[in-house]
């Protein structure tokens, strides 16, 4: 029966090519635009570390003085050196890392290659295990290296390709600023999206090319990049950043169970009270412990423009659907004569209804194919854009399946009303007027 209806649908669609083309085009345009923007939204609001993101938390403390205090204020989104080091040394989480971003001058050993600046991450040792960073060669450094301010470096695959031709470079020496660093690890391709661990450095930027221990970076006086917020007399003096009343570091902690999360929050409150008693903290205790995904929400990492575009595309899809409903209605009602004959010959309302829905399904499928092509075109256009997230805009399998489900679903929905209207035809009346 299905194949018979399909045959009928194709015949009917072929009879009025202009109208069919219009309907398919409308669906394709709506689907294409929606899928393009939905894909971008899907890519940008994704989970950077599927599976582990639920166990990662970002503690926030309130170390500022009373100047400008208002109850209910959000604590700073970064942490001071003193608090960061205290939390790191306390080791209350399963893993923890204190970090910040920067840029370091690289002096290649090869003649003919000019010195250049590379983005760097200065971090404590748990960074690699906590964020499950994949290694191509070697490994990260140890807590002892952190303590000893060891001159060791982990580099990205891109930098390894550039400097060492992609060979295993562990054990080689790399000159950073004035210091000789030993390469102890090379990362495999790693680009967490968003760049969750430091949203000051661009939400969708590449991971850094150079990783060195945080303590070493201070020892070497490497430049710090990103946001620095100071209060009181703080500010400007990078040489004494450790003691300045400024927040400029990020601290992440891994807590593997809900009980540990509660305990950690209690620890943070206790710590704040202690600091208040010591006179370091002035404001009332105010600690927060957002999880990774919550942290991304708080920082509004998904650009407002992208959300706006998605709403716009969905609005466009609705217009296209209304358009299709109108056209299908016109098409189905024009065939009341034929439908009247079928009804008179014994087809039930239900069968006629099914037949018409199959016809709209076929239109949806054709619109889906067209929409997919348009989505590929749309995403290609998005990738030409200069935004940092542009290169991420690719259609994956789930979005591909969704395109077809959306297209067929939307056109079936659009077909419901016209099909129902066409079924209401009284066969006797139609036959009489013929």
């Amino acid at each position, binding site marked *: 029966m299905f194949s018979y209806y399909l045959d009928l649908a194709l015949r009917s669609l072929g009879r009025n090519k202009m109208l069919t083309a219009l309907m398919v*085009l409308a669906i394709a345009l709506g689907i294409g635009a929606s899928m393009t923007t939905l894909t971008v939204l899907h890519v940008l609001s994704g989970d950077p570390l599927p599976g582990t993101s639920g166990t990662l938390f970002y503690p926030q403390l309130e170390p500022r003085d009373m100047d400008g205090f208002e109850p209910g204020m959000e604590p700073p989104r970064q942490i001071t050196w003193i608090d960061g080091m205290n939390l790191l040394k306390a080791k209350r989480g399963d893993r923890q890392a204190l970090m910040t971003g920067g840029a370091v*001058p690289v002096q290649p050993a090869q003649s003919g290659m000019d010195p250049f*600046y590379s983005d760097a991450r200065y971090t404590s040792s748990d960074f690699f295990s906590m964020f499950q960073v994949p290694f191509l060669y070697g490994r990260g450094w140890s807590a002892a290296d952190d303590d000893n301010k060891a001159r060791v470096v982990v580099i990205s695959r891109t930098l390894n390709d550039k400097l060492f031709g992609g060979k295993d470079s562990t054990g080689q020496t790399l000159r950073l600023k004035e210091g000789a660093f030993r390469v102890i690890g090379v990362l495999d391709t790693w680009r967490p999206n968003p760049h969750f661990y430091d949203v000051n450095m661009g939400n969708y930027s590449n991971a850094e090319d150079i990783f060195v221990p945080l303590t070493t970076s201070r020892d070497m*006086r490497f430049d710090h990049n990103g946001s620095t917020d100071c209060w009181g007399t703080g500010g400007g003096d990078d040489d004494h950043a450790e003691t300045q009343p400024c927040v400029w570091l990020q601290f992440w902690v891994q807590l593997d169970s809900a009980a540990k999360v509660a305990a950690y929050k209690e620890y943070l409150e206790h710590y704040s009270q202690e600091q208040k008693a010591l006179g370091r903290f002035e404001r009332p205790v105010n600690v927060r412990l957002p999880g990774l995904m919550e942290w991304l929400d708080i920082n509004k990492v998904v650009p407002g423009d992208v959300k706006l575009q998605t709403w716009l595309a969905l609005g*466009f899809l609705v*217009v296209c659907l209304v358009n299709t*409903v*109108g056209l299908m209605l*016109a098409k189905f009602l024009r065939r009341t004569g034929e439908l009247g004959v079928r009804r008179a010959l014994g087809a039930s309302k239900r069968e006629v209804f099914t037949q018409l829905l199959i016809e709209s399904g076929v239109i949806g499928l054709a619109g889906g194919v067209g929409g997919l092509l348009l989505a590929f075109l749309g995403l290609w256009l998005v990738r030409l854009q200069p935004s940092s997230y542009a290169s991420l805009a690719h259609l994956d399998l789930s979005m591909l399946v969704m395109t077809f489900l959306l297209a067929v679903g939307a056109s079936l929905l659009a077909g419901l009303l016209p099909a129902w209207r066409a079924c209401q035809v009284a066969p006797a009346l139609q036959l009489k007027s013929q």
Partner: protein
Amino acid sequence: MDILPILSTLRRHKITAFLVIIEIALTCAIICNAVFIINQRIDRMNMQSGVDEHRLVYIELADIGASKDEKARTLEDLAALRQISGVEQVASINEIPFGNSSSNSGIKLDLKQRLSTLNATMYSGENLVKAMGTQLIEGRDLLPDEYMDFDQVVRAAAAKDAKQIPHVVVITQTMAQRLWPGQSALGKQLYISEYPLTVVGVVRELVRPSIWDDSAKSYSMIMPMREADGRYAILTRTPGDRERVLAAALAKLKEINPRRVVLKKVTLDDLRHDFFQNDRAMAGLLVGVCVALLIVTALGIVGLGSFWVAQRRRQIGVRRALGATRRNILNYFQTENFLLATIGIALGMLMAYGINLLLMVHYELPRMPAIYFPVGAVLLWIIGQLAVLGPALRAAAVPPVVATRSV
């Protein structure tokens, strides 16, 4: 034209008429808001920077190793840059409009204030006003003996030594009006942290390097501090000199000290272009969607119009046979479309207003000016009339003899 017969016909085609109305309403609502956003973005892209953009170039350098005497080298750099032909002014500065990197501070008018009055960016660098081509409209520029070295100021602030901290400042007109509405800012005092600064000059405009909030984009101060951070603003004599000056400047700077890396070498025009790239992309996308929407809507009207004409051939034939002219028939379909479009537009206006309210809440957009409503209405009326013209002409071509034929 008699409207009543049209209304009675439409009443018998409720669903189809309703669909046309909804489609026009949605299109109208979306287009009004999209065009509004496009205009917002265009306004943003045309933002005044307050500097002489077409003549200004910017260079940013960083040292490879530890640098010895940055101040002496900066003086040497500046002297060398001044000698390049086509260079009018140079300055070693800390930040540049559209450069996306800035240092900012809370400003108070009274030390007893608990919260800052506003947050402003701090430009600094000797000769900055002249080298950026910023226009002074009140008071005077900072004087040579008022400048202090930036690193010394930082040290003085840590030691709370008020003598080594600047006590004069130049601010923008917007900031002056925000702090002292309706008064002259000259001679007035503002506070950064606990240190008072007297306003000695006001510039027409100087936009911040990074803009989070459009309403605060012009809150800028120029501090009397000398910078030695490898950031140079060079004002060329004519726009045509820029490329040559940039190349010559880089060669000179490399010659003075080869052990540094060029981080940026741009004209201000390029900086502006990059700064607004997302706005440009968004505006382009919105234009694309508007065009697609209008095409889809127009095609929808063509499709439904054709269907109606085909359905009413007999009726049209009868009217023609009874003496209606071709023009009558044409007018009939045009009026019908006009009626539907008008209802759709009225509904669309309400929806446009609602969407605008939502956008104001969620995307911090301002209220849409009333002018968008009539413009949107006229646009959709025109689109509707153009789309219906084809089917209507076909209807007018139906000969009266059709009335006598059976189908």
